[in-house]
């Protein structure tokens, strides 16, 4: 909620500063530079907008360090970035998998574990 308010405010400021700059360019000879207050308003609004966008991010941030990140994947999902090298779907032996499943369902979840290759 706070991030939305921040984004709206900063967009208003940005539009206002653009309008002021336009006005300035129409009313004064083009050789003079922008007034200081317009420059400051532009910069402040852009900085606030950046903060607002970052704060509005709803997704959980991921660890920067590779070892921490892959560790989290391993313990939460049991499958890291290279899990496909263990699974190798392209070479899926579907008949063996079906047979394994049929056996498993007969055991009604007794041996709920599978062997990784």
């Amino acid at each position, binding site marked *: 909620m706070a991030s939305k308010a921040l984004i709206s405010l900063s967009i208003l400021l940005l539009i206002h500063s653009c309008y002021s700059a336009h006005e300035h360019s129409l009313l004064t000879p083009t050789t003079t530079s922008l007034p200081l207050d317009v420059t400051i308003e532009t910069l402040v609004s852009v900085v606030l907008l950046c903060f607002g966008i970052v704060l509005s991010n709803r997704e959980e941030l991921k660890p920067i360090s590779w070892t921490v990140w892959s560790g989290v994947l*391993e313990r939460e999902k*049991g499958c890291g970035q290279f899990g496909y*090298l*263990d699974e190798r*779907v392209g*070479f899926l*032996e579907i008949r063996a998998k079906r047979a394994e499943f049929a056996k498993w369902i007969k055991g009604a979840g007794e041996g709920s574990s599978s062997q990784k*290759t």
Partner: protein
Amino acid sequence: MAILKFLLSYLSVHPSPLRNPSTSLHLSQQAPAFLSSSESTKDTQETWLIYEQLLLSCLRTGDDNSARLCLQRLSDRFGVDSARVKALTGLYDEATSNSRGELESVLQRYQDILKEDPTNMPIEKRRISLLLSLGRTEDAIKALTSLLSHSPNDAESWAHLSSLYFTQGLYQQSIFCLEEVLLILPNAYNIFARIGEVTYISSSTGAGSTDRTEAFEEAIKYFARSVELSEWYLRGWYGLKLVTGKLIQAKPSDGTLGKTESLNQLATEKLVQIVSKFRRNEKGWMGFDEAEVLAAKDLIDRDEQRFSQ
């Protein structure tokens, strides 16, 4: 919750539903509901990803009707000539064949497709795994090496070739293939651990005792690298503990074992942490494979018994 959203979140929590029978079952049970829902007609990337996963899970659990429907919609959307759809069709035919004769005819069809288009990788991979299903391992290895000679950048194929060599007891070749994977993906920590495992296994079959300690040291290096790249890789820690333990046993009072012992201790600590958190069903620690956690527990217990004796 809408079923599309539910399936997406399920797949993000279980990225490889084929690993366990229970996740495959759960996913395939959702298939009829998804296929009859209005959301199944959405043409987004996510929907088609779900179709593919549902197809695989349904084939695995034997729900051939839903699988047929998934395949039908995939081929309606992408055309029967798409390489991926062709491979999935082949997969369906393989799974639903009832006799060896039918399988042979599927194999013949693969060969015909490959004659027309020799670069069709998905079909080539299907052909290799069908050869394996038919028990023709040697032909499969030959086909796989020829695949790798024209596309040596495919890590999946190298990893598969390694496992085929491993089943044949050709450990040196198996390790070579894994090293090729590492050349393509230098951060693949599970491959590091796998090299450690194969090195350890090959040393425990034959070879003299001096060679064995050398092989143990080699294996320890690979395991250590794998846990360096992933701090909670169970197989890496397991291997590290197992092999450092063996090395300590092999040359007990050498004086040069300080590092090995501290590695062993570290691995034990990590394994104890994993086992206890998994058993307490702690959030964020439930991804481990149950059988692997049990094996780790077993290893810790055995070690403790040896110390107390």
